[in-house]
């Protein structure tokens, strides 16, 4: 507080308050009473009236609370706090496997977490409650602010307070020019500087920086647009995975997917009709250096066509470059090898010949998989049986390592390790089965003549013969590659992006633009000369405000210069000289 406190200061504060009012439309905190019913008259009508008033009063009180800055602040803080557990506890949405591991490891904590929704925080009721309340609060805040702002835009900047020298920035001088002339000059100068200005009484009132408020409202509106777009996307989205071996194809129908997830309001008809074939997959890896084996490029060359009879077009999908077809995007998400295997029965008839995709288990693409011969095979006795082979594939085998772990992800020295079973694969029961694993419950493992488990490492072109005329399995010289694709449809993405960009624009406006008022008063002084007073007021104290006022004062001063026979400036009364 300045040293020049006088007993008139209270009145002046009020005067200044009016001048500084509505520099922003930020909500003003007002106290509200706790009960609204007043006196309760006897009888039923009295009770009804009392209850009605009370209920309405409380409802209004709650609404005021919810839309107050303080509660909005608390909700905002709660939102960030609420997001924390989701990043530390495994989430079923991103990693269901980890969730089940966690539940198995924590017998007491698991069910509690489950009850609290901590395995799907971002979809849980309490997290939803926080952000819905926050957005209701936001809407309740910005609607009245918008009206208020529209009112300010239609109105004019408020008139000058009585004592300009009490404002944060102030300048004064005496001039020979007439007061009307000075006001006209000031009006022109201010308008040229793009202030909204008008003459009110003996002073010019001007205001600038309305874009701050515009930006602020725009930013909050954009947040609402983003939330709606995100929610829309979650409700109507679909996401499916499909593994395709080179040469094979896919058409976008539900039955073709290996795995499919969708939002609550998604319907199968929403799938964009298209199909594509994987022609070739290329993966290259670092050859030398400490990061040997680190992937360098992954790309899938495909041909795709829209609709049932569309013309086929060529395209290359890379990791960061999905294929866009209508609302669908096709991403390249994984890859691996699919060695071509031929199985023959005891008579030499081919009963199985196809590329078998293997699932990578490490970064050097050591892979495992299962070769399942479901039908067409008869054993040496002529009885129909099923065959199964558990296989481990390594693209680069190293004899020196002695293990079936790949040394490099490229195809330098491919080896396929197989061991065979016969009997019932268990697929006929209709229970879904992992295609990369054998269900060995009803299977018997082949053994060699010495009674040991039959297991062999095959190089391309080599064959393992099964005992007792049961046939053979050949690792063909051809090794195909497969690519995993994810097909995603998420409507509302464009809206979310537009909202996000608008939010940045609005934010920049609301943070970088200062809203400020300038008044120029010209009155006839005691000696007959004109006293010019200029003052500026901003919403917050800013170093720029006095600078700008100085510039404006210099401009006005140029055309209404200091009276030459006078002191160059008069010490402003009341203000301290610091």
């Amino acid at each position, binding site marked *: 507080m300045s040293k020049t406190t006088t007993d008139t200061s209270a009145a002046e504060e009020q005067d200044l308050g009016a001048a500084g009012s509505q520099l922003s439309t930020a909500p003003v905190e007002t106290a509200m009473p706790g009960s609204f019913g007043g006196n309760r008259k006897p009888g039923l009508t009295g009770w009804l009236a009392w209850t009605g008033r009370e209920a309405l009063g409380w409802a209004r009180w709650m609404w005021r609370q919810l839309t107050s800055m303080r509660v909005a602040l608390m909700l905002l803080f709660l939102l960030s706090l609420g997001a924390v557990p989701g990043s530390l506890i495994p989430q079923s949405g991103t990693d269901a496997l980890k969730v089940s591991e966690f539940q198995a490891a924590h017998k007491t904590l698991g069910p509690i977490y489950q009850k609290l929704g901590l395995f799907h*925080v971002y979809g849980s009721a309490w997290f939803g409650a926080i952000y819905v309340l926050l957005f209701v609060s936001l809407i309740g805040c910005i609607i009245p602010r918008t009206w208020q702002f529209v009112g300010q835009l239609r109105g004019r900047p408020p008139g000058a307070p009585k004592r300009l020298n009490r404002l944060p920035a102030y300048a004064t001088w005496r001039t020979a020019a007439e007061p009307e002339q000075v006001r006209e000059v000031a009006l022109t100068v201010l308008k040229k500087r793009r202030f909204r200005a008008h003459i009110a009484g003996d002073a010019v009132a001007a205001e600038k920086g309305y874009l701050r408020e515009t930006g602020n409202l725009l930013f909050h509106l954009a947040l609402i647009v983003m939330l709606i777009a995100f929610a829309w996307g979650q409700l109507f989205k679909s996401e499916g995975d499909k593994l395709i071996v080179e040469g094979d194809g896919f058409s976008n129908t539900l039955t073709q997917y290996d795995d499919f997830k969708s939002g609550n309001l998604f319907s199968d008809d929403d799938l964009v009709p298209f199909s594509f074939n994987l022609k070739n997959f290329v993966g290259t890896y*670092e050859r030398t250096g400490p990061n040997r084996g680190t992937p360098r490029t992954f790309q899938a060359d495909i041909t795709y066509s829209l609709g049932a009879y569309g013309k086929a077009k060529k395209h290359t999908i890379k990791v960061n470059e999905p294929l866009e077809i209508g609302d669908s995007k096709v991403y390249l998400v994984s890859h691996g090898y699919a060695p071509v295997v031929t199985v023959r029965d005891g008579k030499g008839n081919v009963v199985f010949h196809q590329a078998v995709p293997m699932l990578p288990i490490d970064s050097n693409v050591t892979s495992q998989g299962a070769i399942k011969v479901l039908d067409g095979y008869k054993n040496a006795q002529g009885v129909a049986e099923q065959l199964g082979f558990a296989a481990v594939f390594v693209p680069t085998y190293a004899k020196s390592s002695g293990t079936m772990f790949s040394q490099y992800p490229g195809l330098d020295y491919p080896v396929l390790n197989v061991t065979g079973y016969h009997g019932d694969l268990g697929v006929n029961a209709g229970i879904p089965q992992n295609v990369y694993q054998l269900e060995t419950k009803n299977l018997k493992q082949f053994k060699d003549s010495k009674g040991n488990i039959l297991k062999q490492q095959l190089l391309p072109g080599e064959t393992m013969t099964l005992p007792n005329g049961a046939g053979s399995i050949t690792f063909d010289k051809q090794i195909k590659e497969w690519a995993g694709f994810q097909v995603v449809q998420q409507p509302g993405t464009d809206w979310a992006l537009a909202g*996000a960009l608008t939010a940045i624009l609005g934010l920049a406006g609301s943070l970088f633009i200062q809203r400020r008022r300038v008044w120029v008063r010209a009155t006839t002084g005691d000696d007959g000369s004109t006293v010019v007073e200029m003052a500026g007021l901003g919403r917050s104290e800013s170093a720029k405000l006095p600078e700008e006022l100085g510039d404006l*004062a210099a401009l006005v001063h140029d055309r209404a210069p200091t009276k030459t026979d006078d002191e160059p400036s008069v010490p402003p009364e009341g203000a301290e*000289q*610091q």
Partner: protein
Amino acid sequence: MNLAAATNEHLANVSNTLIYSSMAVYTLAFLAYIAEWTFGSRSKIGRTAAALTGAAAKKAAAPAVTVQNAGGTAVLERPKVVVRAASGSRDVPDGPGAHGGDEQGDLYGRIAVSLTVLAFIVELSGVLARAASVERAPWGNMYEFNITFSTVAVGVYLTLLLFKKNVRWLGLFLVTTVLLDLGIAVTVLYTASDQLVPALHSYWLYIHVSTAIICGAVFYVGAVGTLLYLFKDSYENKLASGGKPGAFATSVMERLPASANLDKFSYRVNAAVFPLWTFTIIAGSIWAESAWGRYWGWDPKETWAFITWVAYACYLHARATAGWKGRKAAYLALIAFGCWIFNYYGVNIFVGGKHSYAGV
């Protein structure tokens, strides 16, 4: 190994040497800043005088203008602008800075700034050599992120100095943490230079990661301001209520800018970079949309970026709300910066997720 690879390895070694050299120079700068603070604590008189001249300099903010008249040049004074502090705020003048008006202290301060400039140039060359050795932006792993981060933080500080902002008091605190940052980088996080995995092959790397680094550096400068504001504010409160702070606290606090100005400084810094942080998250979302098939998936890094964003939004709102202004808002700003730090170190080391590349 081909010739190109050999050159690259050579450049990588050059980069390492430059980073170590910059650490040595930062250490010298650190000592010089210490000397500045030490010598500055000597003279009480010099400090009081400087405080007075400091206040006088504030008044002279409006320069005189030369007005050309038709009859000749007459020097007329431009109307003086009188600045008043808002009612209710303390009218405390800014401290004179670490040197406390002491001549020798000031000399050491200047030496410290010069050494910081030198160290900055050496470190920047180190970062550029690293970039040249891998032929890409040097932001592929935590080591590279760290060395770029401290370079940018020092760059922000030097830029503010260049624009004649009163920020020399930041020097000691900044250089201390830069040394810590580089220490962690060369010992714990060091990764030999190499190429990027395919997921990072995108021009969004340049946009998303560079803005993330700039935001971190600027948030950091803001956090230092906030922390000093809290100290200075309680010091001023103690003085105002008639208490007598300890000799060391007085010696240090007296030389810092006024708490109101420290608060304003950190608010400006944080508010200026908040839209950029918003942009960083959005740029990340756009990249995620093309690389991972969704623009928002609550990956730990994304979640913590969001938490940091909300925490800074909280701070900006709190500062404009009665009853939250000042200390409470400052605590929020520190929490927000804590979120940023956790998002960088904590998420990479303890949580993992899709932002893990090249080991960490």
